């Protein structure tokens, strides 16, 4: 309330940001930090504000189907944005890949120099993943476990976070010795094993403009901004690939 008041006051005084709008963006949990880094750059480039809601991709999509007030959807897969268009929530032709994610195994307790050998030895109590049904990174983690033939060995040790951020929490707090997380979440951390890309399907993260945001200049500007050199540089520096 007070923020809105001061915002109005400022706008009145300065009357520069006459066309400043706000865009509501639903963001897959793995992209949390990058999205937050991008917000001030977006503001600087366009004058618009952005408000994020973070969650598991499936969770956000469920909310979108129930008329959540999101205008742009940054998914962690390429399935749901396409589904959004097919089911009439997304704008035709607005889907594009904003980042290609990588999966990492992370630990605060163990040395991960030989990550694969460590997983096969099974000398740990708990391993955290995101919910494979709703979080694409959880799905990729499951593919890795299957590819290594460890499904049965790891099943009793598996703990499931609602999304990739919770899988990171479980690992960060030491409650789980190991966790499959997004490489972007553990950039610069010491005990990380980057999972070889041939063990899982590439995580193509697509964005889609939702019909709710079609008339909002801030929403279209945000989608544009994601493809800008400024944004791409930040996304690449955060551990993603951009095509």
């Amino acid at each position, binding site marked *: 309330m007070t923020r809105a008041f001061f915002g109005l006051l400022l706008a009145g005084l300065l009357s520069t940001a006459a066309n400043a709008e706000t865009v509501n963006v639903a963001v897959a949990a793995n992209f949390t930090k990058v999205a937050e880094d991008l917000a001030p750059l977006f503001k600087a480039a366009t004058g618009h504000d952005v408000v994020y809601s973070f969650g598991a991709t499936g969770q956000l999509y469920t909310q979108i189907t129930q008329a959540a007030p999101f205008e742009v959807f940054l998914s962690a897969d390429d399935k749901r944005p396409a589904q959004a268009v097919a089911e009439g929530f997304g704008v035709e032709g607005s889907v594009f890949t904003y980042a290609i994610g990588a999966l990492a195994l992370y630990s605060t307790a163990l040395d991960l120099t030989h990550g694969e050998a460590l997983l096969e030895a099974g000398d740990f109590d*708990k391993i955290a993943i995101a919910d494979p049904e709703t979080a694409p990174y959880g799905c990729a983690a499951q593919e890795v476990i299957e590819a290594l033939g460890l499904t049965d060995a790891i099943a009793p040790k598996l*703990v*499931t976070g*609602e999304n990739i951020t919770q899988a990171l929490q479980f690992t960060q707090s030491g*409650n*789980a010795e190991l966790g499959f997380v997004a490489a972007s979440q553990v950039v610069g951390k010491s005990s990380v094993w980057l999972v070889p890309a041939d063990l899982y399907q590439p995580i193509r993260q697509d964005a889609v403009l939702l019909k709710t945001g079609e008339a909002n200049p801030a929403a279209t500007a945000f989608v544009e901004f994601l493809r800008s050199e400024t944004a791409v540089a930040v996304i690449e520096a955060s551990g993603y690939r951009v095509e």
Partner: protein
Amino acid sequence: MSLGDIWTPVSLTLTLATINTLTLLILGTPIAWWLARNRSGYRELVGAVVAMPLVLPPTVLGFYLLIALGPNGPGGWIASIWGGRTLAFSFTGLVIGSFFYSLPFMVQPLRNGFAAIGDDPLEVASSLGASDWQRFWRVALPLARPGYITGAVMTFAHTVGEFGVVLMIGGNIPGQTKVIAIALYDHVERLQWGEAHAIALGMVAFAFVVIAVTLTVDRRVNVPMP
């Protein structure tokens, strides 16, 4: 939609609620007795601490529990006795979390029940030569019965409905920590409306029965409604 999908979380939740209710009946009694009968200056302070979970968001409890149950907290130390590292992601962890979360739901009705007895019946029992134990078992306990029933029903129901705390410390393990509320949440996340409806409707019926029972048992005992 298999029956096992729904029955596993239901039976887990009922087990958790039963254990938690029994634990709190035993441990809540001395706390409530002390709060009701003691005239010490610390009384209101302890009362406030016990009541905290009524106003604290469950996520606050969940956050502290995640740390306290982990390898660097007391939970990790306890787990190391049998070679574990953490009490998070375990049924034991849920029992500990539920205890703190439901403490006021047991202690408040018991405290009110004990306070309502007053001094007279206990003094009469003393003058007739009753020992402290006899005074408690034969006078205080029967007179505080409505408080016990209300406390047990509220604690049981409150545990059945637990969500935030479990979401943060449970790790969603079927048969271990996946309780009813979490199972419902998962079904909704996955757009499985059929299963979600079945669980939600069951919970609505359960809540109605609990409230009806509580209201019928005693209209005089003040129950803090969650």
